[in-house]
């Protein structure tokens, strides 16, 4: 089969791409054959998404070439041939299904909003005939995705790249999507599936390529293609022979978590997201502990972390603080009282910092009431002293606390964001991807600061403020980061805790990562 249709393969040869000092692709070679589904797996930051973007013509590679039908193709050619289907369909939500099919090809159909027979047959194939004249906004996500596929088919696209397409779909909808993926492959089109879920890769892909550090390290197919093998290969330089039974792992972790070793600084029980992103979460974070919450996009891990800080609606019980605990149990007021003792730093610096204010003002932005006098007035000297104290603690490298926020490097901006959150000394500090886009030096400083904040004896924050940090919770998906900073990781899959891992059980990041990826894939 391969020989007969080799002329229609995509051949990727020696693709290199750098972003500044970061090597995203480091000589990637991979071939996609018609009639098969090629699975792509890889840890975060391995270069998967750069590969996807390069194939789609959105990113220009520094070196290397992409051959289609045996001829080299440039970005423009590729963009016309490749359709990416991901979690958020790129469709016109304000237009009907039929209009979506026609838009962009109007030259051939001037002012004619009707679709022709071939097109309506296409919609029937996609299970969309009932919705031809429905505005896309009113259709579920799965139908929007099918519209996107139909649109690509109508435009004779030949390459379909599915990038985590079903992370927001129900199980039934996912099954339907995979059926269509197989149909596309059977019709001779080139299909690539990028997924974090090992089970799906193993079931649906014919071959699975492992992308690690910007290279395709190994391609598994046939009998070699098992979940265990993929998980093992995913881990850099893996040396472990066997990966423990997932269920046993999950049980052991759960047992450790539930054992009442020390006092809990944060306790969740029956904690359920109002829109179902996660449900029935029971977990606790001990005094002085750093716990990472991990999970692929759409698993509910991010929403769980938001809900702890009071930024996502949830019901159930949330207890904050070792001593004077505030418990949220259903009503909005108690939830607010509990989450008020939680400081939050979001994933994007743009949503954490005030770029119209100075570095010092940013550091003090959360506690302006506490440092004002009785009349609510602020004194420049008090402000400067407080800001310099915080800048010093957090090793913010700025000429002066009066410098504008935008003049700081990314790492220092992030330190300011964390410093501002700790200034009020919340009991729990919740951070989302705390070192995203941060240089290595700042990273280790941030880890040290987080450790210091979790320690009840560590005196981070402004002197004179009441209370102290009791624990730190992070949303994090980077194995190296979790390994370095966390005591425990709680892995979320499909809205539930699929297992917990204690970092002290591992000697090296590779074996930890293998277990975590396993849990992340659903356990």
């Amino acid at each position, binding site marked *: 089969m391969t020989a007969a249709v080799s002329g229609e393969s995509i051949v990727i040869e020696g693709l290199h791409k750098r972003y500044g000092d970061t090597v995203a692709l480091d000589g990637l070679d991979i071939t996609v054959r018609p009639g098969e589904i090629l699975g792509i797996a890889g840890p975060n930051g391995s270069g998967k998404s750069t590969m996807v973007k390069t194939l789609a013509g959105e990113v220009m590679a520094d070196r290397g070439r992409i051959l289609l039908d045996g001829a080299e193709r440039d970005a423009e050619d590729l963009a016309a041939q490749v359709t990416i289907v991901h979690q958020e369909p790129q469709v016109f939500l304000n237009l009907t299904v039929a209009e979506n099919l026609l838009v962009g090809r109007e030259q051939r159909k001037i002012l004619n909003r009707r679709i022709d027979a071939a097109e309506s047959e296409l919609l029937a194939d996609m299970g969309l005939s009932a919705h031809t004249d429905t505005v896309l906004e009113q259709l579920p996500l799965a139908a929007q995705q099918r519209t996107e596929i139909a649109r690509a088919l109508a435009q004779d696209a030949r390459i379909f790249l599915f990038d985590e397409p079903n992370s927001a779909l129900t199980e039934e909808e996912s099954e339907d999507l995979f059926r269509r993926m197989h149909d596309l492959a059977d019709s001779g089109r080139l299909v690539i599936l990028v997924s974090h879920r090992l089970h799906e890769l193993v079931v649906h892909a014919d071959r699975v390529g492992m992308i690690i550090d910007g290279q395709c390290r190994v391609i598994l197919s046939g009998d070699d293609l098992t979940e265990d093998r993929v998980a093992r290969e995913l881990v850099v330089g893996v040396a472990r022979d066997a990966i423990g039974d997932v269920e046993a792992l999950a049980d052991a972790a759960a047992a450790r978590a539930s054992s009442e070793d020390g006092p809990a600084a944060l306790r969740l029980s029956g904690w359920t997201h109002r829109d179902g992103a996660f449900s029935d979460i029971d977990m606790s974070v001990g005094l002085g502990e750093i716990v990472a919450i991990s999970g692929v996009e759409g698993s509910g891990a991010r929403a769980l972390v938001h809900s702890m800080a*009071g*930024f996502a609606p949830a019901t159930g019980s949330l207890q904050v603080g070792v001593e004077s605990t505030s418990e949220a149990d259903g009503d909005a007021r108690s939830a607010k009282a509990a989450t*008020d003792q939680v400081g*939050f*730093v*979001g994933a994007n610096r*743009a*949503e*954490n*910092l*005030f*770029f*119209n*204010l*100075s570095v*010092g*003002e940013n550091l003090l*932005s*959360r506690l*302006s*009431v506490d440092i*004002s006098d009785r009349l*609510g*007035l*602020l*004194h*420049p000297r008090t*402000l*400067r002293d407080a800001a310099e104290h915080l800048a010093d603690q957090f090793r913010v490298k700025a*000429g*002066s606390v*009066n*410098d*504008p926020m*935008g*003049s*700081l*490097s990314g790492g220092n901006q992030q330190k300011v964001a964390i410093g*501002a*959150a700790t200034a009020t000394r919340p009991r729990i500090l919740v951070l989302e991807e705390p070192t995203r886009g941060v240089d290595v030096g700042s990273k280790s400083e941030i880890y040290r600061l987080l450790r210091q904040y979790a320690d009840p004896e560590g005196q981070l924050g402004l002197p004179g403020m009441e209370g102290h940090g009791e624990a730190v919770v992070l949303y994090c998906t980077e194995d190296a980061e979790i390994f370095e900073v966390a005591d425990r990781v709680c892995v979320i899959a499909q809205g539930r805790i699929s297992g917990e891992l204690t970092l002290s059980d591992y000697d090296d990041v590779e074996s930890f990562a293998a277990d975590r990826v396993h849990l992340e894939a659903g356990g």
Partner: protein
Amino acid sequence: MSNDTNDAGTAVPEEPRDRIVSRLGGLGLQRVGGLLAAVVIAGFIFAVWSDWLFLKTGNLVVMIRLMGVLGIIGLGLLVVLLVGEIDLSFSALAVLSAVVMGKMWVELGYHIAIGILVAFGVAIFVGLFNAFFVNVVKVPSFIVTLGSNTLVFGFTLLISRNTPILAQKLPPDPEEWQVRGGDYVDAAEYTFFRALASNYALPGRFPLQVVWLAGFAIVFGILLSRGVFGFRMKAIGGNEQAAVLAKLPVRRYKTLAFVICAVMAAVGGLLDFSFISQVQPNQGGVYLFPVFTAVIVGGASLSGGRGTVSGTLLGALLLAVISNGLALNATGAFVQQMWLGTVTIGAVVLDQWTRSRQRSESLGAGLRGLGRRLGLLR
């Protein structure tokens, strides 16, 4: 705003040369300096053009009074812009407040204090109305206040039947009372009312609006540059999402901003009523453009988080100079309108230009800092 020259803690130097320079440095000073220069140049042109009529006491009084009204209402608008919202209803509300007060006091014969209280009550209600739709219903403030502007204006015409309200005191002779007709108010209350905005003891009926403005400017200046109030307003206006994540009371401050703007509009409207002792219900849009222009020319940003009291005062002065100068030189109301439009667009262009300069300067500072760290620059 990072360039506020009133606020020592926030001055933004491109390079910390020395403290005085760094405190006064940055574009805040350039902006204030530029505005002062504009006022002087415009004043000089009008003075020469009008054969020095422009500088006569009587004319200066008229001009200063205009500045007082623009400034008082402008301070309220400044607070709304700082917090990142917009209010278009203040002008109609200024007139409504005066009409409500006149209706209660002149037509219905209540005590003046009740009239004033009811007028402020109406203003606070409109401010809360705006804030409710912005905070709770989540309608953009531009739309909400565009609507409430028209609502307020219509209500003003309705309750006044579009008839001007004239405050006149009871004449000593009841016969004359019969002849002149109309409504009269208590003489003592009338004297108190007129004294709110004019002082006959000072030369040329010195307009007290300016004194009121000075008082408000001091209070607002302290609140905005030294108070937690202003600090949080700027933070919320600068990045609302960050303010939410920092758990700042965003809604409360927005509500406060709309109410303050409404109350200041009422103050401006009542003082104007007091000065001319008459209110025209159909003048609902008369303050909208000049006040907006004054505040924007004064350096407040339409995208929130930037603006100063000193800038607003100078903006109000510049607008007063330009309006008065044009009126004096008999260019006519129509040409005056065109000038106002020109100044508005010019102000926004200036705003964008200074902001892009500010960005490139801080970028420059960042690059210089990087260069120093790498040892490329000393």
